[in-house]
């Protein structure tokens, strides 16, 4: 379970260009949810996702994932948390260019210290769900945008994280590929019971999600 309590985040604090990116955000995301955070551009969706994913710190408030209060963690502990418990899918530039599809999918598991055979098995498993099992030896620059995003999703879920955060995963995809990716992620949510949290203003993503959180100027307008 992810819990946010009175979270505030500022950019350029105490300057003339100060932006109150997250304004007293409090919310709870239960295990297994398939939730989208939506809102206009600049409303704070990515900032919120980065804060939950321990990529950025907040200025005040508490964020907890299960029993871990991530707002109290130092940089080293945050890196460990990202590695062990959180999967990420970003808008673009998701894959490690020097690794092929299979290596990208197994990358986090390898860092986590999984045995080679377990990694291989899991790569095949998720690659099949995401229909990338025929391109395992391809390099990222040989893949289409949609395929790259599917590999990114596969990598994010391969290590069975507690939480998968996807920041505008369909932004660079055409509608056909967007729908395909969303259907696959929904399948993953159902099969693997992975908690998935999106930041998106894609109508199709909002349609597919079971819950919608609307942000406006940094605060929660609707939960």
């Amino acid at each position, binding site marked *: 379970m992810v819990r946010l309590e009175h979270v505030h985040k500022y950019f350029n604090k105490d300057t003339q260009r100060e932006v109150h990116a997250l304004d007293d955000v409090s919310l709870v995301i239960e295990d297994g949810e398939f939730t989208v955070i939506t809102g206009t551009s600049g409303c704070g969706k990515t900032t919120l996702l*980065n804060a939950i*994913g321990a*990529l*950025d710190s907040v200025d005040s408030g508490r964020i907890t994932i299960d029993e871990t209060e991530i707002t109290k963690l130092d*940089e*080293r502990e945050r*890196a*460990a948390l*990202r*590695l*062990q418990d959180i999967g*990420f899918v*970003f808008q673009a*530039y*998701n894959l*490690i*260019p*020097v*690794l092929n599809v299979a290596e990208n999918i197994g*990358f*986090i598991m390898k*860092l986590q210290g999984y045995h080679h055979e377990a990694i291989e098995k899991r790569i095949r498993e998720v690659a099949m769900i995401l229909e990338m099992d025929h391109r395992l030896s391809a390099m990222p620059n040989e893949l289409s945008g949609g395929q790259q995003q599917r590999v990114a999703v596969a990598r994010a879920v391969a290590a069975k994280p507690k939480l998968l955060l996807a920041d505008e995963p369909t932004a660079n995809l055409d509608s056909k590929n967007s729908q395909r990716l969303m259907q696959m992620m929904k399948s993953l949510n159902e099969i693997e019971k992975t908690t998935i949290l999106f930041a998106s203003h894609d109508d199709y993503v909002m349609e597919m999600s079971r819950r919608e959180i609307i942000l406006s100027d940094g605060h929660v307008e609707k939960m």
Partner: protein
Amino acid sequence: MFSLALKNILFYKGRTLTTFLLSLCSTVLFVVYVAFMDGSHESMLKNSLSIYTGAIQVMHAGHYENPSYDTLLEDLPSVMQTLKEIEGIRASTPRLESFALLSSEEDSAGAMVTGIVPESEVLVSRLKEALVKGRYLDSEDSNRLYMGEELAKRLGVDLDDEVALVGSATDYSFAAERFQIIGLFKTGLFEFDASSAFVNKAYFDGLMLSEKMASSIVITVDDPEKAETVAEKISKELPEGTEVLTWKKLMASMVQAMEVDSLFGYISMGLFFIVVFFVIMIFGFINISGRIRELGLLRALGLRSSEILKLLLLEAAILAFASVLAGTVIGGYLAHFYELNPIIIKGMAETYKAYGIISDEVPTRFDLFTIAWNAMVVLLLNFLAIFYPVYYIRQFTPTEAMHHV
């Protein structure tokens, strides 16, 4: 991590090749440059020592600073016998030096007339090889003179001509004799050739009343660099009142000249290395700047800053080790090759004879220790050059890095 570093190296081929070649060329250049510098110094030193000075000289204490008949070595046979038993000495020979006036029919000149033992002198000096006219001395020679070509010119004499010697015997009595010139030599050292003449010591001792005496005993050793060690052994074996001097003192001006030359050589190399350092660093910086988003992604996925640092250092290390190793092998091979087959620059000996260069050959010096430290310097340079780019990348948070343009 190692495999990721290796994949990065193989993936970014252009960057890899440029860094590799830059580092390789620097290593080859440095190894060969130092080998040539050391080789020319060693050659100059060996030549100079072999012309006349020898690696070590044994004298009576105080004779070097203030040469006089009062500070001659005595009981020469006993000292020579002692020297024969010391390990590390290749050959030794006594000399009796006397400053005298030489006069021909045309002119007179002051000269250092030295009594030598012809057979053993050839083992420590190149006097015999310097012969240009006539013949070298032998042990049967009496009043025969082996004279520097420039001195002969000053006196206006030639082979078979006679000159009169007027000097002082070791008991400060008057010593005079007529000598016939049987040979002329040219070492290339102008001052030496213009002021030196040699005579058979056995005969000279009779004239100078210097039997069993010598101004100095000249010694050659297998390795001039180890002369100090041999000199210490000699000091221990010879009686008090004897002074043992190595080439470092005997040729202090040449040692200083070589040190200055080395210093300028290293300053030149230092400037070269500053340029190489900045080229590697700027190149590394440009490359890492181009990978900020990739490195940001790695951090977002859970790699710690220290692991990113480790990854980048590993990449630098693999490239540096490979290029420096290849450079060392190539540089070492060239150093060894040119040690065996020196480059020949025609006319060099003539131009630089005043500096003790008696050959047109420019040899290198192949020394594994020197090559090893040369390689370590370039390796260190490679590592130092990566630190600023790594420091730069560490300033970004994962999200800043991923959004970097």
